[in-house]
Every structure is written in C-alpha cells, then in structure tokens.
C-alpha cells in the first residue's frame, strides 16, 4: 500500500486521461493508423489506471473511498467532489473495460472521419466515468449532460441510414427528461445551499429542510424521469431501438453497456439515497413498469426480424430486471441489480460487437439474410453461442448470478413480482436461442454467406475478453459482490425504518 499517496488523485486521473488523450488527438495529423493505435493506447492506459481501484479498494468499508473534495466555484459552494463505493467502482471499471474493445471493434469498420470518431469516443469515456465518480450534484449533472453530445454525434455522423432521426430523437428524449432533474437539483440547492450529495442526503435524513415534505414527491419524480428515460423504463423506451439500430457498433456497445446504466445507477444512488420514503411509496408502480418492460421487451424482441433491434429490445427486458431488483429494497435484489448491470454490460456489449462484425461482412442485420453460418464461420459461431448462453442466464456464466439474485429479492418483496419476473428468463432463452438457431444452424440459405470470413485477429481481441469476463463473473461472483454488498447494505440500512416496512410486507 505504498502508493497510497496516489489515492486522492486516482479518480481524477482515471476520469480525465481519456479527455487528455482526445485533446492530444486533435493535434495529431490525420494518419488513420496512428490515430487508432494512439486511441487504443490511451484507452488501455485508462483501463490499467482504473484497475488501481478494485485492487486498493477496502471492501468491508461502507461509504465512499478515494475521495477528493476541492472547492471549484467558491461563491456557489460547488465542489469538485469525487468518490466511489462498491456500486460505482465496478461501473467505472466496466466503462474502462469496454472502451478499448470499442476501439478495437472500430478498427476497420470506421474509415471515414477516423479522427473525429476516436475523439468523440474518448470524450464520451471521460463523461461516462465522471457520471459514476461525481459526488457533487452539479458535477454529476455536468458529466451527465456531457455524455449526450458525443453519443448523439456518434450516432448521427457515423450511423446507418436513419441516423439523423435516431440521433435527434435520442438527444431530445434525454435532454427533455434531464432538465427536470436539473430543476430538482436546483430546488435542493436553494434549500440547502449545497450540491454535495452526502450533505444533502444527511440534511434530508435529519429533516433539516423545512419545505421538503411538500416537495419530496416532485423532486423524486424529477430525478426519476431523467433516469427512467435513460434506462429506458417502459413506456419511455422508444428511443432505444432506433438509437441502437442506427448507431455504429462502438456506439451501441457503449450505449447498451454503460449509458443505460447511468439511469439505473442514478436510481440507486439518488432516488434511493435521497428520497427513501418516496421510493418506498412509489415502488409499486415502478415495479409494475419494470415487469411490463421485462415481458414486453422480451416479447417484442422475439418477433424482431432485425438482429440489432432484437438485442436492443433484450436490453429493455434486462434493464427491467435491474429496476425490479432496485425497487424490491432487499439486499439480494439490490446486489442482483448491480450484478445484472455489470453482466449485461459485458454480454450485451459483446452481442453488439458480434452483430457489428456480421454487418461488416454483409451490410445487413436482417436475420432472414443469414442461416447456417456455423459452417463458414465456426469460431464466430462458437463465440456467439458462448455470449448468448451468458446472456440467457446459464449457470456458471455471468447472467445467471444477477438474475437469480434479483428474482429472489423480488420474491421476498412480493411473490407475484418474482413469478412474473421469472417468466422473463424463459422468454430471453426463447428469443436468443431461436435467433441463434435461425442464424447459425441448418444449411447455408444464401450462397453469398458461404464465403464469409471467420473472426479476424482484432475482432477476437475485442470479443474474447468479454467472454472471459463473462465466465469469471459467473464462476467467482464473490469477487464483485464482496465490494458491492457493503455499499448496498449502506444504501438500505441508512434508513432502517424504511427497510423494515418493506421487508415486513
């Protein structure tokens, strides 16, 4: 532990190294190969730096670690306050893990405006990490909005046919929803004269804000709306399929892998953290929406003729599990929700990469265009199957652990929630395995598919780390859960009366 003196600055480094890389990239000449290599180096460096966090994280300890708290804007009492607990730490690592893979998967597929593409990707990484590390509400909102521009540009500039429509829709949905969060943040600031998450949480918990009871429900909804659109929770999900289908592969990977988790992370951190009472009161309809999302997402995914759209709707379904777990207010539910977030990030990220690889070769996502691909592309098929099984929730792979914990939490909250949620697991097996069967098994239906190339080296380098991570997370989930659990307990026990009420139901 002799590098402890690094600890206060490590979060700053992890957050801003990609941005620094992006700024350097602006100065680099337009030699595409150099730009790709440089971006890969920067993103790998960020990943390496971020590994400092789990290695030196003190697991049993509740509360925030690696904290840094400096005054930023004196007169408004805005602080540069960062810190992580077991919840945000893994989301940071997930982001830094996926970004180098995004660079790899875009190695060949992006050949126009390469420089701009990688600049946007690195800026996006900084904004995403910032969202998870900020403990000052102003800083949080700062990064939250900052994710919007690079993502919208990635979709709109580098996407497919209807990219402009998808980019504008994505931007407007999230922008409109998040201004209401801004209003809620400003209200809290007007009452407490602070943006600090910890201070505001304590003041609310001690009833130190006079007007709070009257406004609490509106504040809860202000935050919740912003997060629900991001997740996306049914019925705010309509931007997601469009955005995914039109986005370039790397955009889809980060969108599904990390951006959606901003919403669930926000619910966990802010809705539960700041408004425990309102969370409890509103849990019933949120859980119903989550269940509708799980089942509706799965059913719609099943009938999609487009592979990318299918994966997109499967995200709606999986994120429903996360919301269900969070609002079950049980330890296993919250642990499971966190684990599903990570597992979904890894396996759905990989699924999007695999879909992108196929699109590279055939320029289509239509499932009916394929069939019998296992023969010409055996390695690809094997990798695909592995990821599909992880996503379906096969025991010993990552999907199983999270879904199991969420469902057990949902059962504890109310049996009917557990039963309905469990059907989602079945549906996900149906739509993913059926899609796999149609694409890979049987005879090759289109002759052009006979000559498709199998996975290339850099594609393997992008997909296989996900497979390895999926296996590790399935076999030894305790590595992850040992850090998550104390944070989850802290989220639940800081308000004991609420927990007892929920568990007592």
């Amino acid at each position, binding site marked *: 532990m002799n590098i402890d003196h690094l600890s206060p600055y490590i979060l700053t480094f992890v957050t801003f190294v990609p941005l620094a890389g992006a700024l350097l990239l602006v100065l680099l000449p337009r030699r595409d190969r150099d730009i790709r290599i440089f971006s890969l180096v920067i993103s790998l460096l960020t990943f390496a730096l971020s590994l400092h966090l789990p290695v030196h994280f003190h697991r049993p300890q509740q509360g925030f670690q690696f904290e840094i708290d400096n005054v930023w804007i*004196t007169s408004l009492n805005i602080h540069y306050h960062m810190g992580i607990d077991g919840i945000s730490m893994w989301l940071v690592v997930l982001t830094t893990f996926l970004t180098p893979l995004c660079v790899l998967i875009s190695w060949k597929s992006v050949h126009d405006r390469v420089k701009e593409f990688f600049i946007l990707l690195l800026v996006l990484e900084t904004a995403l990490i910032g969202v998870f590390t900020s403990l000052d509400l102003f800083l949080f909102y700062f990064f939250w909005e900052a994710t919007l521009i690079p993502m919208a540009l990635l979709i709109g500039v580098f996407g497919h046919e209807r990219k402009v429509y998808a980019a504008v829709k994505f931007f407007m949905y999230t922008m409109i929803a998040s201004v209401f969060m801004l209003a809620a943040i400003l209200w809290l600031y007007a009452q407490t004269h602070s943006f600090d998450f910890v201070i505001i949480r304590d003041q609310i918990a001690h009833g130190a804000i006079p007007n709070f009871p009257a406004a609490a429900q509106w504040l809860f909804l202000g935050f919740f709306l912003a997060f629900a659109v991001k997740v996306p929770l049914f019925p705010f999900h309509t931007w997601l399929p469009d955005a995914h289908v039109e986005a370039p592969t790397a955009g889809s990977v980060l969108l599904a892998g990390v951006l959606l988790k901003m919403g669930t992370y926000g619910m966990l951190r802010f809705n539960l953290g700041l408004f425990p009472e309102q969370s409890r009161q509103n849990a019933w309809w949120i859980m119903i929406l989550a269940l509708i999302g799980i089942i509706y997402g799965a059913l719609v995914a099943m009938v999609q003729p487009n592979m990318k759209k299918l994966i997109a709707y499967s995200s709606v379904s999986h994120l429903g599990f996360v919301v269900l777990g969070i609002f079950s207010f049980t330890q296993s539910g919250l642990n499971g929700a966190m684990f599903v977030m990570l597992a979904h990030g890894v396996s759905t990220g990989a699924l999007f990469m695999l879909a992108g690889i196929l699109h590279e070769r055939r320029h289509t996502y239509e499932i009916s265009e394929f069939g019998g691909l296992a023969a010409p592309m055996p390695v690809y098929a094997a990798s695909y199957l592995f990821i599909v099984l992880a996503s379906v929730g096969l025991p010993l792979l990552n999907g199983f652990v999270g879904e199991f914990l969420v469902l057990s939490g949902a059962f504890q909250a109310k049996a009917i929630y557990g039963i309905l949620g469990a059907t989602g697991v079945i549906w996900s097996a149906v739509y993913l395995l059926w899609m796999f069967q149609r694409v890979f098994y049987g005879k090759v239906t289109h002759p052009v598919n006979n000559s498709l190339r199998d996975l290339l080296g850099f594609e393997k380098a992008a997909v296989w780390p996900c497979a390895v991570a999926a296996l590790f997370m399935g076999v030894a989930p305790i590595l992850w859960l040992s850090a998550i659990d104390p944070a989850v307990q802290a989220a639940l026990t800081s308000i004991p009366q609420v927990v007892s009420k929920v568990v007592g139901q």
Partner: protein
Amino acid sequence: MTTIPALILQTIPQGVDYVRILPEIVLSVFGIAIMLLDPVVDEEKSQKTLGLIAFVGTVAALISTWGMAQSPGLAFSNTIRIDSFSIFFTFLVIAIAAVVILSSFEYMAVQRIRAGEYYALILFGVVGMALMSSAIELVLIFIGLEISSISTYILAGFRRNEAASSEASLKYFLLGSFATAFFLYGVALMFGATGSTNIDIIAQRLQSGPVEMLVFAAMALMFVGLGFKVAAAPFHVWTPDVYEGAPAPVVGFMSTAPKAAAFAVLLRVVFAINAPGRFWFLWVAAALSMTLGNVGALVQNNVKRLLAYSSIAHAGYLLVAFAMTTPQDSATGISAAMFYTAAYAAMNVGAFAVVSHFANAGERYVSLEDYEGLGRSSPLLAATLTIFLLSLIGIPMTGGFFAKFYVFSAALRANLIWLTLIGVANSAVGAYYYLRIIVVMYMREARTEVPVTRVPMGLGVALAISVIATIYLGILPNRVLQIAQHSAQDLLPQQAAGASNTAQNPPAAALPGQ
C-alpha cells in the same frame, strides 16, 4: 455662504472626472480620427487600415477602463458613477466591439462596403453604450441610449444596395424611435412624480414617501422602451426582420452590445430604484420572451432569423433574473443577470462571426441547407460554431450552461418555481433548433456548391477569443462570478441598508450630500 462665481467654479468638472469617462474619450478620439482619415487614405487599403485603427482604439479603451477602475466614484455633478457594476458593463461592451471589429475586416472587403463610417459608427455606438452603463442620471442614460441606437440604425442599413438591409434599417429606426420616445416619456413622468431624474434621489424619494400612481406609469413606459432595446416579448416583433436584413457582423454586434447596455440600464432602473409593482410585469415578460422566442425559432430556415428568435428567448432567460423582490434575492438576481449577459455576448458574437464569414458575398449562404456538409468541408469552423451552439443550448462546459444554471438557481432560491419550470422546459425545446444546425453541418452531405474560403487572421483571432471566453466562463466561472456579485452589492446597498437591517455589508460609500 458661497458666492455665485464660486458656485459656477464648482460646476466645472474636476480632472478626476475625466478619468472616469476615459474609455468614452478614447473611443471618441479614435472614432473622429477614423472619420478624418477616411477620405485621405487609399480606397483599396482603407478597409484594413481603418479597421486596424478602430481595433487599436477598442484595445486602448479596454486598457483605459483599467485606469477608470482606479478612481471609482461620482463624476460630472453626480450624473456618472464608476463602480464595479459600471466597469463590468463598460468593459463588456468595448470587448464586444473589439471582437466584432476583428471579425468585420474580411466581411467589409467581401461585401465591398466602404469601411470608414462603419468602424467610426461602431466606436461612437460603444461610447453611448458605455455611458449607459455608468450613468445614474436618467437624462444622460437617454442620451447614451440615443447615441447607441442611432449608430445601430445606420449600421443595420449598411448593405445599402440590398433592399432587405434598407428595410431593416428603416424598420429598426421607426420602431426604435418610438421605443426611445416611450422611455423619454417615462423619464418625464418619473421627474413629475419624484422631482428628480437622478436614480439615487428617485430611490430615496420612493422609499421615504408614499408611491404615487404616476410612478407606476413611469416605470411601465420606461420598461416599454428598454424592453424594445433588449428584444423582450411583447416588444420583440422587429427582431427577426431586422436581424435578417442587417449585415451579419452588425447583427452580432447589435444583438449583444446594445442589449448588454440596455440590460445594465434595466438593472439600475429595476433594482437601484427598487421599482414598485414590477414583479408580474417582469414575470410575464420573461415567460413570454422565452416561449415566443423558442417556438418562433423552431420553424426558421434562415440561420440569421433563427438566431434572432434565439436572442429573444435568451432575453427571456435573462429577465427571469429580474423577477426578484427581496434584497437578498435581488443581489443574486443581479449577479446572475450580469453573468448571463457576459456569457451570452461571448457565444452570440462568436456564432455571428461564423455566420458572417460563411454568408459570403451578398450574404448568399444563410439558409440551413447551405450549412449541409460544413462539418466536412471546413471542420474547424464547424467545430467552432458547434461550441457556440452547444453553449446557446446550455450544455455543460460552456458559459451558456453556467449562466442558465445560475439564473435558474437564483429563481428557485426566490421561490419562483413556475417561472423556473417554464424556463427549463423552454431550454429543452430550444435544444431542438440549435441541434438542427449541428445536424445539417455534420450529418448531411452537401447538396449545393457552397464556396469555402480560408479563415482570415482577424476572424481567426475573433473566434479564438470567443471560444476561449465561452469555455472559460463554463469551466472557471469563479472570477467573473465574484466580480458580478461584488457589483450587485454596489448596485444595491443604498436601499438594502434602508429597507432591511439584515444586509450584511453596510453601504460601502454613502452618497455624498446632494
């Protein structure tokens, strides 16, 4: 007992009085010099030379604001007060003029406009605006307002071969004269009600005695005049037409500098006078401006018109900061409004600099379609415009975000929940039309042949200044905020101390005996 000659001697201004209007003097001298040189210098070269002289004049004026700042106080028989408030706005309007002059070099050459009067008029206009920022005497404010307005009327018609430009100029002139007349009526009525045109004395009289009906009428009339100048609804109708017809750099100038000066006057009238019965007036004007501006901008296809509606919307956001009543809220409101003015100036001047470069000869390329593919054909220019547009939307890391954030946080602190909600909903709507420009620049391929010309030096420097200012205000707003908050105290203390004993700072300088 003083004798009459001594009284006359007293009225002759002291040396230090001139230091307190040093920037105005410097600007006038340079303006006159340009007028004199215009017929002398060679027609071909005059564009550059006169522009450079004008730029040097603004830089000299900026330096002389420093000298002015060294001797704060009253000047010229209590008609001018130099405090951090007036220094802030004087500096701001001169800085705007400097950037606009830099970005006009190329435009003048491309449009084949004879440059002499153009630069001189900008400098004279700035003199008026600087006077508006530092005057505390309503008649002097009116004179400043006239100087600034008349120069902008002429500037608006500078593309004199274009019918649209002449129309803009005439429209602006006719409506503008009406508006200044309203303002003058208000001043007259205020004099009738209180027996003075000095803002400090008016404030004292209003505090001490009962408020007459006449005062409300006076305030309303003055607000009409100023509302026209800042393009606030319902006095905004002229804006799109005038902005569309006027030369693009002039629009960049007149959408920021005269507006900043008019907001300075409005701040004085509203807060230093502590105008009675203003709350709903301002509330409605703010809500209307935000909504009408944003809704109007949604359907525009001409970039200049679009930015005109956007400027109406931004006047609305700014007016939100005016709807404060208690002294403490007012202090936050004033500093929020000041910060917003500065941030808005930085991003809007920059946006119009890009628009005017891109418009090309005869301002042919100002519709949205012409911007298609700009991201590919001139990436740097497009990226710069994107930064300004993101700032106008209010995306973090830009001055526009922080300005909006500060205004809304001030409004919520004053418990203006509905106005804030209208505001945030509006900024979400506003995002759409700014985004449209970004979309056509980056996400569509060029369909029409639009010539791409190299960015000349002057414009490059102007854009660099605007970008740096926009981002600086977004990431490190600390310093400007402190100045703004300090200025708010300067503007308020007289009545804050009188109205409530809770004011933390006793008035820094009590009024000298009147």
